[in-house]
């Protein structure tokens, strides 16, 4: 990784920090001197201060302009990748599998020493009786996003496995378009249950325990490959791929990178094979969800 001398680096930071205001969010060009990074609700994507610090970190370490693009649903980010308007993205594993032909697995976050995460089925803390999703039949249930693995695919798979039709198992379901809001929905008792990304729940229980304290994890899924960071194959050449990959992998080695990782509640990033996501792919096949080939 190319590291700029300190003085030059600061000058670049000063020069570039005003650029995002002027730049068009949807530039069709690959952008030789800038990267467009898509952020999704796979993690706490609304921590703006943290994201800005991470972006500035990337700019300093890549020597290139980086723009973050945030969308409230996976679908929108997926569309941007399809339209080649993003170079990199942090996706959930389910969208990743959908876009498998358009993206390349760049890095997988390491969380609690592993590249796995889980789906938590949560209920209100006062609901101490329920210990299975089957007990929530004909209740109100909150999904995170129709393209979320932990927040949509997993509960539907579990219902299917139990021999029910996930489409009419609950009295009513709705999407909150974010894992955090699934927790809010259950905490406010808008829904009696919800499915949520374990990484989001765990991180929130550290950041704002008053919210997660209102909920109780009644079931924890087996591990699935952690939502990966991917590169758009058409937009990102090998050099940029390696540049971004090594920047992420090196984060755990600098003090500043460490601090950012701690705030992201991650240990670091790792390189993984695509078969990490086979279990998700299997669930999709079982549920008859189209997987792009």
């Amino acid at each position, binding site marked *: 990784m190319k590291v700029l001398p300190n003085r030059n680096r600061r000058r670049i930071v000063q020069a570039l920090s005003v650029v995002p205001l002027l730049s068009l969010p949807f530039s069709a060009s690959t952008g030789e001197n800038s990267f467009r990074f898509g952020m999704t609700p796979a993690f706490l994507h609304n921590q703006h201060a943290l994201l800005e610090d991470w972006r500035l970190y990337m700019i300093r370490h890549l020597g290139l302009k980086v723009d973050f693009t945030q969308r409230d649903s996976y679908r929108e980010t997926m569309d941007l990748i399809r339209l080649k308007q993003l170079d990199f993205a942090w996706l959930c594993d389910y969208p990743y599998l959908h876009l498998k032909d358009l993206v390349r697995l760049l890095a997988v976050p390491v969380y609690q020493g592993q590249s796995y995460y889980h789906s938590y089925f949560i209920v209100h803390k006062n609901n101490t009786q329920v210990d299975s999703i089957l007990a929530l039949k004909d209740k109100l249930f909150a999904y995170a996003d129709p393209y979320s693995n932990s927040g949509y695919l997993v509960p539907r798979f579990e219902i299917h496995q139990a021999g029910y039709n996930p489409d009419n198992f609950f*009295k*009513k379901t*709705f999407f909150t378009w974010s894992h955090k*809001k699934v927790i809010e929905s259950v905490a406010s008792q808008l829904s009696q249950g919800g499915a949520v990304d374990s990484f989001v729940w765990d991180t929130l229980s550290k950041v704002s325990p008053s919210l997660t304290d209102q909920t109780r994890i009644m079931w924890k899924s087996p591990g699935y490959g952690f939502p990966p960071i991917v590169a758009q194959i058409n937009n990102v050449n090998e050099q940029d791929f390696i540049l971004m990959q090594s920047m992420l992998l090196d984060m755990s080695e600098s003090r500043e990178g460490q601090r950012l990782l701690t705030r992201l509640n991650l240990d670091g990033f790792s390189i993984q094979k695509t078969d990490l996501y086979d279990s998700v792919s299997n669930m999709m096949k079982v549920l008859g969800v189209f997987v792009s080939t």
Partner: protein
Amino acid sequence: MIINFFNLSFKYKIPLWGSLLIILTTFSISLVLIYRSYNILENTLLNSAQNLGFTIAQTLAPTLLHDDIWRAFEIVKAPFHNIPSNHSGALESVFVLSIEHQILVSSQPKKLPMLSPVNQFFPELDKKLNQVHNQIITIIEPSSSKQLFVVIPVIDNNKQLATLVLNYSQESLNKPFFQSVISTLIICFIVLLILLPINWYWGQHMALPLVQLAKKMDSIPSFLPKKDEIDHYNYDDELGHLFDAYYRMLDSLHEKELLEQGIIKSERLAVVGRLTASIAHEINNPLAGMLTALDTLKQRGNLDDRTLHTLGLLERGLLQVRDTVAALLVEARHQKRNLSKQDVDDIKNLIKPMANKANLRLEININVPPTLPVPAGSIRQILMNLINNAIQSANTNGLISYSVIFDNNHLIIDVINSGSCISAEQMHHLFEPFVSYHEGGHGLGLWVTYQLVNQMEGKIEVESSDNQVRFTVTIPINSSSNER
């Protein structure tokens, strides 16, 4: 009770009426303010409810079209953002009802869960909802409940998707009203606390002159008050006129009293005069006989010493009786000589050694024409008597001042001495015979003076004030006197 109130003194009645008026005014203003604040509160609430409801309904339509429950939930929860639950004001909850009156989403899912029929929670609302026109904002205020509902249709392309309901609690609506009532009452109380004592002071102050006047007038038949016994009222209003009338009345009453006293006194003195004159005449006739008989007896001779001695005793006694009787019989009319300026000057010369002897300062002012048609003897006697009296009454090292002035057809004799004043009791008997206030005086000087003045149709006045006694004799002088 009411009669008793009207019988009260103005001292209490004016401040009481004032207080009553102040209390009534303050309370009526407070009532108006309270009524206004209720109206303002109600209008503000309804306006804000309608604005809020309209905005929410507009935003809700797309979420309902897309069955986006979470967004709808976020929208209905928005009015409660950043407000602690116990301070959310009168707005208790916001919820969306389906056409079938089922709760689609509510700001309080725990209390009003999704997909439950609304009649489970607000049966009155459910009943009324069937009656209202669906296309306009309606306010439903069920009489039996403590809730108020603002109902707004959620419309997309002229089709009603759902009904938005803002639920206000009457109780928390009333809370700001009661707060404003309490603050109004506190202000009202403070105003009373300031105004009532001022009013009480003012009322008493206003009534004070009237009360004093009434008190003095009450005492008038039995006691005549002096003019300076009450504070003078300086203003020219009706009360001022009343005071003026009072002073005029006092003046005439005092004058009348003086007149009555003078009449009584002069009548008494006239009676005494007539009595003494007739007694003197009765005594004088036998006395003259007795003196003639004694004289005849002495002239016969051949009387031994002892008899002569006794006769002498008798003669001297009878002569003393004659002198005394002569003194009582004051007769000015028989004196023929008119007063000349020399007579007055003679008196001055006679007085000077006496004043010097008594260590008195003497101030004299004489202004008379060379002659005046008044009996010289009488005037001389009057002057001598009054000045003698003054010298005897004056303190050592005191002042005697007298003036004899002819002015406007009147001879005015003024004698002033710096002595102790004459008491009311002394004043009462001042001109009676044999009344003396000096050691060695026979008590006939002032009696004679009075008689002389009276006979010349003049008047004698006495003023006795602090360390000064003043006798003023005024004798009219006219052409007829000249002929006498």
